[in-house]
């Protein structure tokens, strides 16, 4: 009767502890079953991704820019400057003559702001989620999800298609107005899928949300918040001269602070690293 397991004499000799490491490697290569196994000592270190400008000098100084082939996340509450950073990144990418896509989950993009930020609109594919017809719409017995959930479902499917299509320099998912509870329901598997899809490509995948939702899939995580001066609104107001009209008090801009929460590309700093910048107000005149 043959034994269930057999130990080959060759393998036993290979794993003999007294052999030299180089000799062991040579012997390993001769074993057919282990021929395809790469020893850990010969594994190549993954090259660091190419970094591209985010369009804001302070963010570039803080994080080194946005990494290609990685998922980057920018989070913050309302009026924390997330959309300003998003538009700046889109503008920088289109200035590099790259084709960009914006998956607008809540249909919140302002065309005038985008143009003022310098986005070349011809190179920007804008996908406004929330519309369209669903297959389950004709079945009344199926419980229809909330509009947020439906938009999120569409955003996930659209992002999948965009990443599979390839060729985009930057794909941005805007979850800025999606509540955190809804955003957390997005399956982690989707984020892993996005990360794997974008990894071998030169695409920057940028997610804008209220709270971090991609978790460990994000290679770069920056939290934005309003600057401390925001509470004192006088600093954002450009008060015109006394001779001007009474209504000349206008919003001049926002003071934004960004904090680097996670970066796979560098060691975690001992203390928080922040950067501050200001935004300029846009008004059609």
């Amino acid at each position, binding site marked *: 009767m043959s034994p269930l397991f057999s130990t080959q004499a060759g393998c036993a000799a290979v794993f003999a502890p007294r052999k030299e490491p180089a000799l062991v490697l040579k012997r390993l290569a001769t074993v057919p079953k282990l021929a395809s196994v790469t020893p850990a000592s010969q594994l190549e270190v993954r090259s660091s991704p190419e970094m591209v400008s985010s369009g804001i000098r302070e963010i570039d100084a803080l994080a080194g820019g946005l990494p290609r082939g990685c998922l980057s996340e920018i989070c913050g509450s309302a009026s924390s400057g997330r959309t*300003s950073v998003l538009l700046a990144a889109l503008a920088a990418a289109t200035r590099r003559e790259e084709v960009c896509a914006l998956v607008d989950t809540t249909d919140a993009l302002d065309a005038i702001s985008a143009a003022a930020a310098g986005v070349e609109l011809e190179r920007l594919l804008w996908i406004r989620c929330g519309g369209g017809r669903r297959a389950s719409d004709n079945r009344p017995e199926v419980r229809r999800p909330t509009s947020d959930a439906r938009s999120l479902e569409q955003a996930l499917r659209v992002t999948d298609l965009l990443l599979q*299509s390839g060729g985009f320099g930057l794909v941005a998912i805007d979850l800025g107005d999606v509540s955190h509870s809804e955003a957390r329901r997005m399956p982690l598997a989707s984020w892993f899928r996005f990360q794997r899809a974008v990894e071998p490509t030169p695409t920057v995948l940028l997610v804008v949300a209220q709270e971090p939702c991609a978790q460990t899939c994000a290679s770069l995580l920056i939290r934005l918040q309003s600057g401390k001066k925001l509470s004192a609104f006088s600093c954002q107001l450009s008060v015109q001269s006394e001779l001007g009209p009474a209504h000349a008090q206008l919003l001049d801009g926002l003071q934004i602070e960004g904090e680097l929460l996670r970066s796979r590309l560098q060691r975690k700093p001992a203390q928080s690293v922040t950067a501050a910048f200001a935004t*300029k107000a846009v008004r059609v005149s």
Partner: protein
Amino acid sequence: MTRGVLFSPLARAGRRRHKLRADSWRLRVFLTTDDRRLITEMPFACIFVSDFPVEALLRAEPDLRSQAVAVLEGKAPLQKIFAANEKGRRAGVSPGMTKLQVEACTDLVLRARSSLQEAAAHAALLDCAQSFSPRVEDAGCGTVLLDLAGLEPLFGPLPKIARDVARRACDLGLEANVAVASNPDAAVLAAHGFSGVIVIPEGREAEQLGSLPVEVLFMNEESLQLLEILERWGIRNLRALAALPDVALSERLGQEGIRLQQLARGCASRSLVPVETPLVFEEAVELEYPLILLEPLAFLLSRLLEQLCARLSARALATQELHLDLTLGNTTDDVGTDAPVRPSSGQGRAQARQTFHRSLRLPVPLLDPKVFLKLLQLDLNAHPPGAPIVKICLSAEAVRPRATQGGLFLPPSPEPEKLELTLARIAGIVGPNNVGSLQLLDTHRPEGFRMNRFAPGQRQKQPARNENDKSSEDAARKQNEGAVTALRIFRPPGRAAVTLREGRPVHIACPKRKEICGEILWAAGPWRSSGDWWEQEGWARDEWDIALQEATGITLYRLVRDLLSGQWQVEGSYD
């Protein structure tokens, strides 16, 4: 004795009397190595498709090529056999038999004659000829003549050209005989008489054509009186006809007899009558039974698209616009209640009388039937015909193919084919109006933009700019660097109840957005604007920028008062 050498793509020049069979056609070249020196001027080729009505149907249904097929003509119950393929003839089917007579043949496939498919097949044949020579004569149903003069430097020696013509016809779904001779009539006779590919050297026409039966001379003629006379005389082949004395033949048959004899000798000469075929690429199929599902429709569309793309490819063209015309049957008669085709609204319904039209416009010229099929499928899924389909007609607008040169250092951009498919799929998810690129309109009206078709490669190149323009552009870029205070639009805007004090908002409550409620910490404005007052859609509004204290911090909103209706709305938030 016939001196001949059989060539195939694998046979070497100089071999004698080898008979090789290619995949779908036979090549017989009756010449030796020495004879090839004689082929100095053989400028005409004839492409002939035997059993053309059957071949036209087999082009649409290539699976039937291995079976006996016959084509019926006429109205039931008086249908008669119009044509049959070789296997059908071997099974005993001949033209003129009634449908009742041939129904005894169990393996015989019967199809109704389709003039649409015959026209498409003939157009494909002309495309095949036009892809080699600009001088092409349309010599009737399934026969095309082309002038090969001057083509040898381009396409190689004449036997190779003949082989390539036959192969191109095969790619277009037609098994054709190709004959090359020094005059058009000899080429036509050889194509009608010999199957496969034949090249007749100059001066040997009578010798090569001599073995053909005299019936070849009367293939396209309705009056067979002369044929009967020749048969009574015992003339069975062209060699016998060519050997008759001229004067005696003229005395008995007149000029027509002389003409036939010249044809038999291969020495008739005439000029080619070239036609200019319009660049119309259209394929159609009439269905015996109405289609009620989109899957079999996709199957048929795939065949039509492959034929269409093969024709375009033969003419070195591509297409940027596809038109699909579906003739619809009667819904109540042809389809049950569980039919998956749904009534469509708006654009697709062209006429009340059952025609359904869809157009597919592409940003760049493409020539990939798979891409076209997927795009048509996505389009038909979004816009179903609404009734059973009885006829499919697909046409393409021919344009020059895209000529682009890739660069190593160009920024990444999506491939046009993939991008089109991706856009179509995304449009199926979010709706066709919700995907595209933005274009700002020349207006101050809120939401003054429109969605355009996304085509990043279509951007027109700017003319050469001078230094001043470049410097001003650089200055504008530098000015754009950095962040602007972006607005996030609420679509639709939320109505709000606003309390004013001394003309300024001090309190706001927005029922649809619970977080926008409370005392206004700060308000800047108003920014007044108006426009289009000369039209019915005039607008006037005051904009305020307000700050509210929320749980997450201070949030800035844009508050708008419509001066025409007096309503307050929260238009968006600054972010």
